[in-house]
């Protein structure tokens, strides 16, 4: 896992989903929850959301913007974008490796 996300424990996956959501632009809490559920298919609880937001903010990966009414939007920082890119690149290499191996196995099985 990329540096900056390795010590998030069980909040690592929700944190990545939040970073991906914010990579589109600033969002407030409820909009992040809705976007994460729509893109990943996994619901994000409000407790988990704010536990992850706190961790990401403390590590400088996201930052709060001035509150609009009672909603406070968050946005990705430069460090957050770099960290997310590194993590997604790592995942992409992992996925590619998996697909290549899976395709190789399938060809071998059809050739046998």
């Amino acid at each position, binding site marked *: 896992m990329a540096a900056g996300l390795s010590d998030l424990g069980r909040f690592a996956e929700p944190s990545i989903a939040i970073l991906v959501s914010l990579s589109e632009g600033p969002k407030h809490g409820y909009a992040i929850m809705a976007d994460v559920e729509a893109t990943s298919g996994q619901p994000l*609880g409000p407790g988990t959301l704010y*536990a992850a937001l*706190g961790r990401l903010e403390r590590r400088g990966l996201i930052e709060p913007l001035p509150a609009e009414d009672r*909603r406070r939007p968050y946005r990705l920082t430069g460090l957050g974008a770099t960290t997310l890119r590194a993590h997604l690149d790592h995942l992409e290499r992992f996925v590619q490796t998996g697909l290549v191996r899976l395709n190789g196995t399938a060809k071998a099985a059809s050739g046998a």
Partner: protein
Amino acid sequence: MAASPRALTILAPILLRLYPRGWRARYERELLTVLEEGALTPSATLDIALAALDAHLNGDYPSGASEDRKVRRPMLDRLAPLAIVLGGVFLTFFAIAVVVGDATSLPEDDPVVTVLFYVVPFAIGLLALGISGVSVTSLGHDRVARGLGLLTAALGLGLATAITYLFFVSDIGWDIIGLLIPSFALASGLLGLRLLANGSRARAQGLLLIGGLIAAGAWVVGAVMTANSSRVSVADQAAAIETLGFGILFVAWVLVGLLELRGKPVVAAT
């Protein structure tokens, strides 16, 4: 299934009260807004309760305004110094009482005296180190320090339970405790060594917990002397060495606790 407005009015404030004050100062209004937008479902209620527990144990959220800094430290972190001081004072008193006084003259048949001189000091002292171990475990980002903190906590809490149980229920358990005590001291010593290698804040605690290693050494010396001699005088010396070893460890706990109370965190900041 979202909660009704009435349920939201009743339940949301209760849920938010579960969080530490520092957390609430920073996020309460935002989370309440999210809940009002329809996020308060039964599973969300459980999710919030678990997240509130996490906030107490880990305190991994940004500090808000300056007045929030004092209350941002999690509950365990605030409890640890008090527990360490109390436990250290009790056990230091016990160690001195055994060395200076004649422990064998204590009226051990009197259950009140027995509890006062043996069970209460040990239970409080071991619980103190257990709590400090949990504190290190929950807050440290260093995996080895967290592991050693967990070990110290487990031994401290386990030993406190075992002593309390065995003292009242059984008269044959002291051999088991004899094995656990040096293990416990060794764990705190190893934790001290690890903390010495960490940042400057952790070094003070590391230095003090090295007393754990000294205590373990003194305990082993005393135990060997007791086992190899049938002479009472040597056994008495052995008992004194054992007690001295524990005295060092207990004084170390008191000093760690006092440093914590003076606002120089050595337990939490690993």
